[in-house]
């Protein structure tokens, strides 16, 4: 008993107080920073990109496909590609994830999330989510679990993962959606009461990621139902996820 209390006092408080302005280590690979003037069209980056996220003339990176592996930056001899440590990589529109030279941090923040009044009104103070791993590799799943740990403590904003779709206000989908999970995913969506939102979390969910060429996927779900929020990453960092959801439901 006393040992437990001692441990508690020793540990102190470790939660991140200001999650919206939480600092990120400089090594983190977040929003890409591109420079057309430095690009000499050698196409080395195209050859090393595992997901075809890159395009030349003008240079662009699709964060919905990007695994943030940094291979393109490593291979680029002229410094045309770099990654900043900016981690708020969520958007309500798929096309916003395609980053070009003009897309600075400020610019991206401005356009990324379109706040809807009804979302703010209904979910602003409480959002319960059901997570469906549809062939996710457990990377995004571990990071989503980390959102609820004592450091990030997502629960304090009224955002939680719940055990049943019947208790949920929305789905968070990770993974490229395998054929074998397509039915269960759709079933889960139908079991969630209206009004509901759908969040795609990570490169696999948004575009199929490294698995986009696989013959074992069935991504029809994404064509059938509306998607409300795209959160980029491979895997998605807890700060990216929490700030993405907060931006979407609170408009801040």
């Amino acid at each position, binding site marked *: 008993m006393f040992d437990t209390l001692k441990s508690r006092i020793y540990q102190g408080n470790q939660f991140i107080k200001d999650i919206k302005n939480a600092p990120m280590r400089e090594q983190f690979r977040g929003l890409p920073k591109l420079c057309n003037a430095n690009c000499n069209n050698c196409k080395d980056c195209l050859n090393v990109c595992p997901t075809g996220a890159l395009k030349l003339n003008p240079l662009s990176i699709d964060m919905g496909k990007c695994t943030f592996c940094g291979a393109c930056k*490593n291979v680029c001899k002229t410094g045309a590609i770099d990654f900043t440590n900016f981690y708020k990589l969520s958007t309500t529109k798929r096309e916003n994830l395609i980053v070009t030279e003009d897309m600075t941090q400020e610019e991206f923040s401005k356009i990324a999330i379109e706040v809807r009044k009804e979302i703010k009104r209904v979910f602003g103070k409480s959002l319960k989510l059901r997570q469906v791993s*549809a*062939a996710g590799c457990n990377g995004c799943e571990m*990071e989503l679990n980390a959102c609820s740990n004592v450091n990030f403590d997502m629960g304090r904003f009224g955002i939680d993962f719940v055990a049943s779709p019947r208790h949920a206000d929305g789905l968070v989908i990770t993974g490229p959606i395998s054929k074998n999970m397509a039915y269960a995913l759709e079933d889960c969506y139908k079991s969630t009461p209206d009004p509901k939102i759908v969040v795609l979390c990570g490169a696999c969910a948004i575009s199929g990621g490294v*698995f986009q060429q696989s013959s074992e996927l069935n991504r029809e779900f994404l064509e059938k139902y509306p998607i409300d929020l795209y959160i980029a990453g491979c895997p998605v960092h807890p700060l990216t996820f929490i700030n993405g959801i907060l931006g979407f439901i609170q408009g801040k």
Partner: protein
Amino acid sequence: MNWIKKKNNTKININDIPTLKINDLREEIISLNKRPIGFFGKDWGRGSTKLFVILADDENADLYVSSVIFEGSEKEYESLTQVILAFHIFEREFYEQFGIKPLNHPWLKPLRKNQKDYKFFEMEGEEVHQVAVGPIHAGVIEPGHFRFMCNGETVYHLEIMLGYQNRGVEELMVKHPTNQMAESICGDSVIAHNLAYSKVMEILKNIKVSKRAQLIRTLALEMERAAIHIGDLGAISGDIAYLMGASVFGATRTLVINTMLEFSGSRFGRGLVRVGGVNFDIDNEKIERAIKTLTKVEKDVDRMVKTMLKNTSVMSRLEKTGVVSQEKAREIGLVGMAARACGIVIDSRFDFADECFKNLALPRKIFKGKGDVNARFQLRYQETMESLSIAKRILEMLKNGFKEEVLNLNNNSLCADSLAISITEGWRGEIVHIALTDMNGTLSRYKIKDPSFNNWYGLALAVRNNGVSDFPLCNKSFNLSYCGNDL
């Protein structure tokens, strides 16, 4: 000659592999009686299939390789599982992929396909009832279906149906092999799988990796082991409602993976390892900081575990829950941490040590466990402390010497007609990657064996005669990978 004998991390000319008749090979396998680590087919042209068999001799660090050709008309053979149970899942996989039936297999059910058509094993009786869970689970975890046959609260039998995660990884690896794909085979064993892949490629491309790069790789592997074990100690605490443990281990794990973020730009070490070495060197400033952090982690884990184990209500939940006897574990061929917890001496870091690990000359600690949740908890604790101390030692070495390039950018073409094997001990156990090339030097088959592939059946045995409410606890103590199994 019926076998070709090789070491870990080597390649074999495919033409040197003996090809036997199936009945002869079957006799050979039974008389040799070694552990299977590879049992997979490959299209061999004109409707025929070649089956490769790789057995591991852990005591002498030898790998035995042999093969057999099934002509188009040969569609069955007498199963090995009848004699050696450890083959059960390998034969199921081979049957599912190539349609060659192992006769008299005790339980020839689907592995990754046709889950919907499968009729589950059922027990009858007035008090017997079924509990079906999944594929979508209550927590934030991967999908799989569990079917419990219960009598009241007691589980008689658990049947585990997987395959929901199947993404066709082996096929993709042949078409477009990349480090990033290897990292996504199983997102909690990023370093281990990527390392196994990189080594296979380096063998086939004849690329030498510098000592410094090897040290950084080993460091990352041990940090991954420590991080996941700490996370799982927290998850076990959570499942027995010891929330203090869940919070503290959760926060402590963050320190380890954030150190990994400093090294590689990703909390799980994505983008660190690549064919030819590692992408990032570690400077002395980061090393100093990492040593400090890992020392704190050691202290915090030690303190929390000791506090926890003094608590009788904790011990009453951990002890004698989810027992797998050593005998059973051997029979079904458990590997890695799950096997060690049953008192089996198996660790491919030592059994099939690579050059770098050999040079570290670490003493091997034998764990005497009883195969219950408590054993797996204590083993994870012991391995965490061990890994942290190895990591610190490597950091010291990197600080004081081995100043060399960490990346060899040679990009030779792959050797033709070869088979390369690499075994890496991830935190769950041995990860085996096997690659075959054809006469033009292009990849023609890629085989992955995650430790979960062997161990899922161990979980099914562990929950027998336990309360159904203890399932989460048993499950977390193993924490097996769904996507590692489903590929």
